[in-house]
């Protein structure tokens, strides 16, 4: 019974991964013509949650901007600004952009990530040493 429940949870979890956040879930044909499913997963659940936060922040960006424009104001009356304060506090917590963390794209490492390449320092070094980064050279001066 417990095993069944566990497998159901795992299955539904992976389904959730696939259905709502399709990574590369296009059915592709190999050279023989048989249809294969290409499954992709995010590196870990933390990366998935970060993706959800980004999408939600994009959704609510306009509303947050407008309500903040009303709040950070010296012209409109204070009662209106208090009402706006309560409104923005009522937004879902994941809708604020401050919660987004720039993780490494390959390993989901939260620290040591260079913004230009979106890679952590370890992955960056690995790729650069194997000549996979265009224009990157070991520094020597």
């Amino acid at each position, binding site marked *: 019974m417990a095993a069944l429940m566990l497998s159901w949870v795992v299955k539904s979890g992976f389904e959730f991964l696939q259905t709502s956040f399709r990574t590369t879930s296009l059915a592709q*044909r190999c050279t023989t013509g048989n249809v294969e499913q290409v499954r992709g997963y995010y590196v870990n659940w933390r990366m998935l949650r970060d993706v959800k936060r980004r999408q939600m922040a994009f959704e609510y960006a306009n509303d947050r*901007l407008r309500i903040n424009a009303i709040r950070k104001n010296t*012209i409109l*009356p204070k009662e209106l600004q208090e*009402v706006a304060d309560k409104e923005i506090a009522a937004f879902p917590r994941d809708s604020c952009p401050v919660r987004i963390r720039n993780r490494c794209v390959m390993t989901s490492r939260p620290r040591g990530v260079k913004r230009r390449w979106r890679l952590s320092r370890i992955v960056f070094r690995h790729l650069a040493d194997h000549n996979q980064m265009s224009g990157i050279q070991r520094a020597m001066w």
Partner: protein
Amino acid sequence: QRSFSTSKAISKESEESSAPKTGEKEAKVKEKKPGKSGKENLLDLLSAMKVDVTTKKKFQASKSQKSKEQPRVHPESMESATSMFQKATTEQQTQKESLSPELVAAASAVASSMPFKKSQTESELLQQLRKHESDTEVHRKGETNNIGNIIADMKVGKRPNARSPNRPANQIRFDDDGRGYTHDRGVVNEFDAVRRRKSLFTGKRLNIFPSMTDTTETEPKEVSVPSLWDIELAGQIAAVIKHLPRNGFEEMIQWTKDGKLWQYPINNEAGLEEESDVPFHEHVFLDSHLEDFPKQGPVCHFMELVINGLSKNPYLTVKQKIEHIEWFRGYFQQKEDVLKESEVY
């Protein structure tokens, strides 16, 4: 992330969205013409002038005014030949495409509001507007027509067949001498006749193939909703035809077609083609959308600030700006009671 604040990046959009006066200021910096004192005075006056209400009323008031003057090209004031050609090309283009009469009327109204040198200011304003138009046209079409326009005024000097140095030697042929060779004329002379034709399509028609109009006139076929079998068949054909990428280049081509990869050279306005058709005054003069708001009080002041910020924003489309304003309208109508308590609405 996004904010109402002004941006310092000078992009095509910002050029379009700035009023003619700021365009003139930029042009003054760019072109560096020999200093005209009248122009500097004009700029001082325009910067001191209030923009919004008065000038707009003057735009709308004077509809039928004098016609625009032709821009004068001063050869001695040109600093380089390319700028002269560019002036010539802008002249050519303006003869084809004229400014909208509202813009012309607006320019003449602004010029007439200036205390002195009205005709000169008017012609300069119109020149700037035309330059904006031509710049946006050029930007839209890409660099395709530029060279054609630039060299349109140049006359190509055709040199006659410059093979005369060979002629004296050609006259003596060594065939009969028994050595068995003539002076090697090369394949060039054979292609001479071909090259002398100006284009592909001159010459007598052979009438071998039936002409296009007879064969391609078919009745418009009725397209019904494709059934599932049709869709499946189309998918099968597409899958057979589509070759898996053999190398990295083909993979990148496929990604570019899919939209996963940017198009190179990078076009900053990649998704925004239809936005460039929107004239700049719709970005800048957003007063007309403020009609449902109260005419006085803090709400009016706030909305004027919003409009001001939006007019300076080159990154939003006009639709997005109008959506912002409409949201505020709905929000203030919702919070009417709160506003009425503080006697503001």
